[in-house]
């Protein structure tokens, strides 16, 4: 499959070849610089394509984001925090940091690393986390029983007709609902 950039580079090289043929008789340095310039024109072509293609595209891929930041960014940050912990432990081993300070700083960094790891595990942003939580809680109480309850709440004690939950009187017999 021909990529756009290959097309442009090929075009640029062809044009450069043409220029070299046309420019015979000039000093070699001139010809080299000319052909470099001509090839760089193909970069302009690539750039223009890169600029215009997204405007015409149906859909532009956005990378997966977690809480407004890309997954990659969070992974990088996690690595950096881990490295900071390492460095801190090293400083401590070189006896530059007092025990108390070390404990506090280390605890803070570890908490941060753990937080980032949880975030990565969840694989989504806070919005997704909340959605998951809700789903989990709903799953605990089966939906069928709640429907039954709702139905029972609207049932008329006199004639047994199912009414809306917020109805005050039965739509069939007119008996007052919810009094019993």
């Amino acid at each position, binding site marked *: 499959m021909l990529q756009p950039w290959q097309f442009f580079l090929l075009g640029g090289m062809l044009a450069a070849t043409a220029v070299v043929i046309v420019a015979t008789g*000039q*000093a070699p*340095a*001139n010809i080299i*610089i*000319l052909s*470099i*310039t001509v090839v*760089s*024109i193909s*970069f*302009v072509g*690539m*750039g*223009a*394509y*890169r*600029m*215009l293609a*997204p*405007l015409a*595209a149906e859909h*532009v891929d*956005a*990378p997966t*984001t977690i809480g*407004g*930041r*890309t997954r*990659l*960014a969070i992974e*990088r940050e996690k*690595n*950096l925090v*881990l*490295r*900071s*912990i*390492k*460095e801190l432990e*090293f*400083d401590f*081993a*070189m*006896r*530059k*940091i*007092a025990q108390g*300070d070390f404990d*506090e*700083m280390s*605890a*803070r960094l*570890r*908490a*941060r*690393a*753990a937080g980032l*790891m*949880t975030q990565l595990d969840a694989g989504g942003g806070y919005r997704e986390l909340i959605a998951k939580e809700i789903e989990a809680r709903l799953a605990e109480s089966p939906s069928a029983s709640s429907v039954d309850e709702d139905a029972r709440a609207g049932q008329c004690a006199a004639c047994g007709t199912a009414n809306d939950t917020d109805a005050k009187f039965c739509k069939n017999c007119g008996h007052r609902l919810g009094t019993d």
Partner: protein
Amino acid sequence: MASLGALLLLIAFVLAAYTVAAAVVGARRRNNRLVESAIGAFYTVAAVMTVASGVIIYAFVAGDYSIRYVRRYSDSVQPLFYKITSYWGGLDGSVMFWVFLLSCFGAVAVKVNRERHRELIPYVVAVIATVEMFFLFLMVIHNNPFTTYLTETPTDGKGLNPLLQNFYMAIHPPTMYLGFVGLTIPFAFGMAALFTGYLDDSWLRAVRRWTMFSWFFLSLGLTLGMIWAYEELGWGGYWGWDPVENAGALPWFTATAFLHSLMVQERRGMLRVWNVTLVITSFLLTIVGTFLTRSGVVQSIHAFGEDAQLARYFIVFMVSTTVFCFGWVIYRLPLLKARHELDSWMSKEAAFLVNNWILLFSALFILFATLFPTITEAVNGERLTVGPPFFNRWMVPIGLILLLLTGIGPLLAWRKSTISNLREQFLWPVLAALVTGGTLVALGVRVWSSGLCFALSGLVVGTIVQEFVRGGVVRRGLTGTDFFTAMIGLVSRNKRRYGGYIIHLGMVLIFLGFAGQGFSSDQQLLLKPGEEQKVGNYTIHLDALRVTDDGQKQMITGHVTVKNTKGEVIDQMKPAKWYYRKHEEEPTTEVAIRRSFAEDLYIVMPAFEVEEQTASVEVHINPLVNWVWFGFSILAIGTAIALLPEASLSFAAASIPAEAATAMLVLLSILISSGTAFAQHVETGQDPRLQLVSPKAREVAHKLACWCGGCSRLPVGQCSCGMCATERSNIDQMLKEGKDETQILDYYVTTYGGNQVLSEPPTSGSGRVVWAMPIVAGVGGFLTVAYLAMRWSRRPSIAGMPAGIEDPEMTARLDDELRNLD
């Protein structure tokens, strides 16, 4: 050709404008299409600038003299290499070259960070494109390098300034520009963080590498500039506090400060406002640097002449940028609150705070002293000179304090150091310093600044060695390998830290070179062929004075034989004077240098008389100069180690020494090859008189600044131009007539109508301001820092410190991952 070039610049401007618009709109509306398109346009600007650069280089190489710029800065006899470098030999081309570098650099930075910092990228692109727009605007409106002659087409050019036809001068501007341009990237990320409000540490991570990279190029550029000045200007030194050199040093200081203070933010979450401010300041100082060079508001050997219109454009740009950027900083202040407080003055944070303050003070001091003559002239019309003696007076102690901090900073702990910590950490380094100092005193070294510098160097080296050894011991304990492997592992695991220490080591060597200046000596000789004279440990023998011609220039060469104390011939040296065609009125002085690690023998022939076969020869003996260049190569190795990507960790342990060795060899070969390079100095055509002057006359002459306009206002006693030689003999004459120093200085002040002939501003009138300012700013700044630190230390610790991880499973996983890092 020319119209194509002009069209390309116009296209680039339009594209940059589109980039800004699309990026900002796309980011605000969360329209990915627009953002992607803006990034595409941003790349296209780089491509268009590449083509435009190709066009102008072709015009130079093919000799299209219908273009004004090409005609002014090249001619047909120039070697190909200098034809290409003529691209940035003048004002218009250097602005264009700047945009070219910025667009390429920006494209790479965006490409690399596109995925990681998705949220910042649209604004980064917009900020860089805005800066490009400004420079493109300048070119399109005011300094188009593609302007042609309307009527007649000249057949040949004027030729590049002979001063610039030197290898170092050809590569010095690009490295300097890379440094300047590189600092735009951190600025763009900082601004993007301000715009988006994502002011956590992620933007710092993105820019750390770029800052280090551009910091390295600034250092390289400054070093190349020094080598050039040393070999080219023929006054025996390398740093004359020329305004443009200063302009290059300004962002270097702030970038250095930033590289240190970002560690504080990373580790402790402090100094967040400060870091943003430093990034903005560094960027503004690069613009100030360009402004000083390009607009001619200050007198300098580099300046391209006065241009009031250009100065106005620059001032508008600088003022609006300053207001805009700091406006955003103030708007975001609530988000920039520090998370932690300063616990103790005996801590790394405090040391960094002091270091930052001193670096910023240096930058502000140099900026102020450089601009001072311009300011006084604008305010009350009084012309003054702030010459090298004034700078040295202040910068020597500042440098020493920085060296001291380099020694103690790494030894202090974060948060607070206890007394026992201190004792343990400081014992060996302080001993090293005392031993060095004691030895020097015993040897009879009496130059206080140099002696102190050596002792402090001992402290820093002691610190670094101790850090390496103790680190190695700890690591050996952890991994159970032998000491050497542990050492390599140590460096490869903590590249930034140990790379930084190696950079410190390089700085120490550079300081050794600076300290060597305290022991330099020079002597002026008047020789006829066959005569000889003793200078220090050398005997200088003039063999002959020869005149030759190579078609491009006429060369008058003094053939000098150098003998050592035993009378053995150790070298043949050839100081010369070259007269380039079409530039006969500006002969260049070719320096002959005999290099060694202990000292350089540096011979200049400022004047001669062919008929009488007499040459005036100046001999400088400069101890330890080569350590400056050598120290730079160590610094380069340190930077390379610190910059190695994280991913190279796995194999770096084995390959670092090899790489370092290669880098060192390359740099050393550059240095060694420079030993044979000829240097030049362009001067005015005045014919100096051949006369010896007394040491007293030189001393008086040191208090005057050269006013010939071509010599970057060096002291007359040092400057090697013809005018200064004449003035030195005049001073000698006046001394013989019985005048004293004040009378002579008064004579010059009245003759030349102002205090600008004095190399230091007088301590009266408006000159007082420049003397008072460093003190006021120094004390004021110190009080401010102290006050802020007090406030921080009183601020109650923010509650809700994470209580640690409750989940044992998570703890186990964390420990596991930490082990895997080793």
